[in-house]
């Protein structure tokens, strides 16, 4: 494996009064596509800059495999970065930009030509080598930045919100390209983003960060299906959150008396005691919405009655905001394929029934 393991131990960073990183520890495996996900100011970029060598942590350590890299300058680390604003050298052509690291190493002209051509092919930029950066589109600039960062054959590639300046469609395409490149060259990718859908779609694992802390590290599936706390649950995807007190439990089946909906049933593998106050969450796409009261549901399904207060049509799905008898608003997403089979379309002010399996609900945390 060409990639390196990256180990961050107890990294702490203060900028004056601002505590950017609070005792962050994580280990990123060789060849992993690892995302640092969080809102702006959460410390993800600071952590990336510490790994790259542009910032020193106030305390803590960073290892690449077994090497302590903190004493090393950025140019001495076997790590390269794709910058958010591309950071292409405006006075150099595409070819010269990509060749920059090789010329620093004083490689032979023929070797440079060969390597640069190889990487131009990798990022589909053959034919653009003599253009200056200001003659390129955003997507092309980003691909130059990727080729330039890869040509030194780093063992870790750092990507600092590389797609944030691009429009949605291009972003998706480049994301797929990045994933393919990662599969092809097999080095470790550390990808910083505030966009949860980007992180979910390509990462092997994700670290969700907020206010300088790592809140949860896990696979996209784990992060989405079993968020570690309220912040993660709300930041990743949409969710309906209800607080309540546990009134009964049999094995892993709990009954919660929620403040907004009354008693609901939920399955949890974690242990809670009767009387504990907890936060319950249910994803909008896991709720079934019908005009007729559903009959013959298993007994561990939750059923509520409500009225559609808002519908949002977005092509592949519809989003409904439902006012239940007690709770103000409930988000429900319905995919259109099955929704059309289900009979008449649900419209604004329709009376509806919501139901979901207790297994799909989730107890986030004690509160």
């Amino acid at each position, binding site marked *: 494996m060409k990639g390196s393991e990256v180990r961050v131990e107890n990294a702490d960073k203060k900028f004056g009064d601002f505590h950017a990183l609070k005792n962050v520890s994580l280990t990123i495996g060789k060849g992993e596509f690892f995302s640092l996900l969080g809102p702006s100011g959460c410390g993800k970029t600071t952590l990336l800059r510490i790994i*790259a*060598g*542009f910032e020193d942590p106030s305390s803590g350590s960073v290892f690449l495999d077994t090497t302590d890299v903190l004493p090393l*300058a*950025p*140019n001495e680390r076997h*790590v*390269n*970065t794709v*910058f958010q*604003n591309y*950071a*292409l*050298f*405006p*006075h150099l052509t595409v070819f010269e930009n990509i060749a*920059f*690291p090789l010329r*620093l*190493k004083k490689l032979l002209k023929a070797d440079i030509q060969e390597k640069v051509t190889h990487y131009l092919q990798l990022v589909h930029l053959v034919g653009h*080598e*003599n253009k200056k950066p200001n003659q390129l589109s955003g997507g092309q600039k980003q691909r130059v930045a990727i080729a*330039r*960062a890869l040509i*030194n054959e780093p063992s870790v590639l750092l990507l600092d919100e590389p797609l944030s300046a691009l429009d949605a469609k291009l972003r998706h395409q480049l994301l797929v390209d990045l994933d393919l490149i990662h599969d092809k060259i097999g080095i470790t990718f550390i990808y910083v983003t505030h966009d949860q859908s980007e992180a979910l779609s390509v990462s092997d694992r994700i670290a969700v960060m907020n206010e300088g802390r790592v809140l949860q590290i896990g696979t996209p599936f784990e992060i989405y299906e079993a968020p570690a706390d309220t912040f993660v649950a709300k930041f990743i995807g949409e969710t309906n959150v209800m607080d309540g007190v546990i009134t009964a439990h049999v094995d892993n089946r709990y009954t919660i008396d929620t403040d907004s909906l009354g008693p609901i049933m939920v399955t949890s593998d974690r242990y809670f005691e009767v009387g504990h106050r907890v936060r319950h969450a249910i994803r909008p796409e896991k709720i079934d919405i019908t005009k007729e009261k559903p009959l013959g549901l298993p007994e561990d399904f939750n059923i509520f009655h409500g009225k559609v207060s808002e519908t949002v049509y977005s092509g592949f799905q519809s989003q409904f905001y439902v006012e239940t008898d007690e709770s103000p608003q409930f988000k429900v997403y319905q995919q259109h394929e099955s929704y059309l089979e289900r009979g008449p379309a649900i419209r604004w002010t329709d009376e509806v029934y919501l139901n979901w399996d207790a297994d799909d609900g989730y107890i986030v945390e004690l509160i």
Partner: protein
Amino acid sequence: MKSRSGSLYSLPLTTWISLFFLVPMLIVFVYSFLARETGGGVRWEFDLSAYAEIFRQTASGSFIYLDIVGYTLIMAVSATLLTILIALPCAYYIARSKNNTLLLFLVIIPFWVNFMIRIYAWVAILGQSGILNESLLAMGVLKEPIQFLFNDYAVLVVLVYTNLPFAILPLFTTIEKFDFGLLEAARDLGASHNRSLWSVLLPNIRGGLVTAVLFTFIPIFGTFAVPDVMGNSNVFMLGQLITSKLKFTGDYPMACSLSVLILLLSAAGLVVYTVYNNRQEQQHQVVIAEDEL
């Protein structure tokens, strides 16, 4: 509707430049080709003797005027180089500082004091009983005062001092617009700190560098007051030579031919730069053509 008032609005500027810039230039140019009137002024007949005089060689084989031109060039080039070398880190620091308004203010403050007073202030610093000598004597470094004045070094020091703001300001303006993220990118890609400044910062602020060189070289090349006050009275710079021709010998054609020479030499620098720039661009296109084959 397209306004035709543009020429009207630019009329004051056109008049001003014509009256006080083009007309004097024309007078200087014409006078340089006229004959000298004994006792001052010109005689209106075509005469190239003022130009011939520039290239005149004495019996002993030395060039009176060309030697002065050479000396002036050496002084101007040295002073310009020193000025740029000091201004560059200074401008870089100001551009990266949070207090750049204050620092720029400090750069500009000396302009509030009259130019000649600032030059004589240097006499007060460097003179035999000046601050520098007094301090060195007090510290015991010197036993007797040294004459710091009236030599080329004193001229260089004061030339650099008076011209620094003219180099710092254009450099600051270009460096401020420079994306410092590019330096991080260069470091990331394997460049040392100095290498990143050399291969990424300098090429991207070339415009500011050229302006700074022109803004310092051209005034220094024609300078009069600084070498007159600070310099060795046995050697002349071109500016002093022209002044003496006007003031003491009344040799107008000579003063004018020397002025034309300064103009041509200064313009030559610009031409060389433009040609060099164009050639680089052409070479670039050649590379493109080769690659396309």
